[in-house]
């Protein structure tokens, strides 16, 4: 009697054909992201590895060394797909359609021996279920990596410290302020104050969608730290809704200089540093007098 591995090995071509058929017939196949040649190549590599592993008599423990190659290939495929933007369903179908193909072939080959067939199907089921779990794990990990990278990028690009004038820094904050970001904002701002020797920092929060008590607390912390360094901090860009929320929440900002717009904050900064901005007689533009 043939063992499962031998049966499968003998019918490899047929399995691959059926598997490809299953994959290609799936309505959700994304031929815009991957050509069918590429898919065929990938599938063949994967099937070869799987059959080699099964032929060593290992049917259930996919963490054994025999399966290393299979799981590695699977992880590669899964990660690549996650990055390319495949949906979880498409990636899952990839492995599950192999199960279908294998079972179909087995059913054809073992029509006379139902009890063996039953055992074999059970084994294959467990094996491929495990493999599909690996696929999903990797897929999600891949997506999470993408998200993490994006988060890093956002926090990097969204905290620029701008030197608007000699001794005046501006820091436009865009997006929600959480603890981690406040830390970055604070560090950047304080370092820049040391580097430029600025007296005044303007914190513009027009890009902050909502201010709750936590965000307000973070703002107050930043202002206090700036003050400890020996610089003044002005908060600008407070919209009507934000002013309402702040008052309704009972947050006390009375110790902090606040302005509605960056322009008025800059004006305040000018008057604090005894600078004057006035119109030139010839109307040629702004002339700043010390």
């Amino acid at each position: 009697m043939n063992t499962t591995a031998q049966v499968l090995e003998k019918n490899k071509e047929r399995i691959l054909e059926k598997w490809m058929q299953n994959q290609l017939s799936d309505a959700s196949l994304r031929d815009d992201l991957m050509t069918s040649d590429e898919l065929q190549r990938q599938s063949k590599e994967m099937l070869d590895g799987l059959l080699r592993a099964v032929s060593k008599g290992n049917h259930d423990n996919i963490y054994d060394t025999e399966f290393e190659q299979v799981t590695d290939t699977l992880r590669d495929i899964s990660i690549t797909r996650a990055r390319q933007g495949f949906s979880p369903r498409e990636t899952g179908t990839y492995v599950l359609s192999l199960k279908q193909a294998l079972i179909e072939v087995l059913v054809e080959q073992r029509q006379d021996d139902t009890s063996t067939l039953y055992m074999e199907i059970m084994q294959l089921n467990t094996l491929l279920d495990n493999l599909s779990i690996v696929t999903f794990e990797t897929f999600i990990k891949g997506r999470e990596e993408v998200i993490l990278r994006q988060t890093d990028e956002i926090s990097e690009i969204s905290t620029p410290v701008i030197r608007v004038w000699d001794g005046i820094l501006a820091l436009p904050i865009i997006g929600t302020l959480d603890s981690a970001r406040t830390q970055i904002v604070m560090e950047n701002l304080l370092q820049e104050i040391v580097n430029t020797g600025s007296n005044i920092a303007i914190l513009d929060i027009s890009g902050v969608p909502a201010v709750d008590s936590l965000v307000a607390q973070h703002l107050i912390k930043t202002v206090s730290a700036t003050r400890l360094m020996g610089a003044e901090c002005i908060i600008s860009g407070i919209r009507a809704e934000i002013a309402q929320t702040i008052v309704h929440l009972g947050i006390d900002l009375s110790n902090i200089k606040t302005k509605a717009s960056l322009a008025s904050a800059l004006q305040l900064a000018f008057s604090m540093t005894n600078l004057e901005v006035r119109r030139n007689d010839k109307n040629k533009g702004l002339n700043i007098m010390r």
Partner: protein
Amino acid sequence: MERIPILKMGPFLLVTIQIDLYDRLALTLENDLINMVSQTGARGVLIDISAVSIVDSFMGRILGNIASMSRIMDAETVVVGMQPAVAITLVELGLTLQGVHTALNVEKGMELLNTKLIGNLEQDEEEEEDQNDRND
């Protein structure tokens, strides 16, 4: 025992902390500084902590104490040159050093003390001028 030197510059006292403060040293400094204020009748105290890289809540409290004590003795306290990391630590500890003036560096701190002094002078001239003459 180690001591932190207190320099007299006109009506002000200048303290430069060059080493990390441990508790006893900080207490000694507090003591010495207040005695010095009372001896010289100084109008301002300038503490340069630009070389201090580590602070704890005790150190923060000492700074606050010095400021409050000096205030009672009619001297303003300015802390200058605080490192960003130190500022963040103090804020995280909830110590915002109310009543302590701050400046970026010694130069700006002196400027600040001078403007404070002039402001005080204008407030009650007679008495201030007497004191100022004595200090000069």
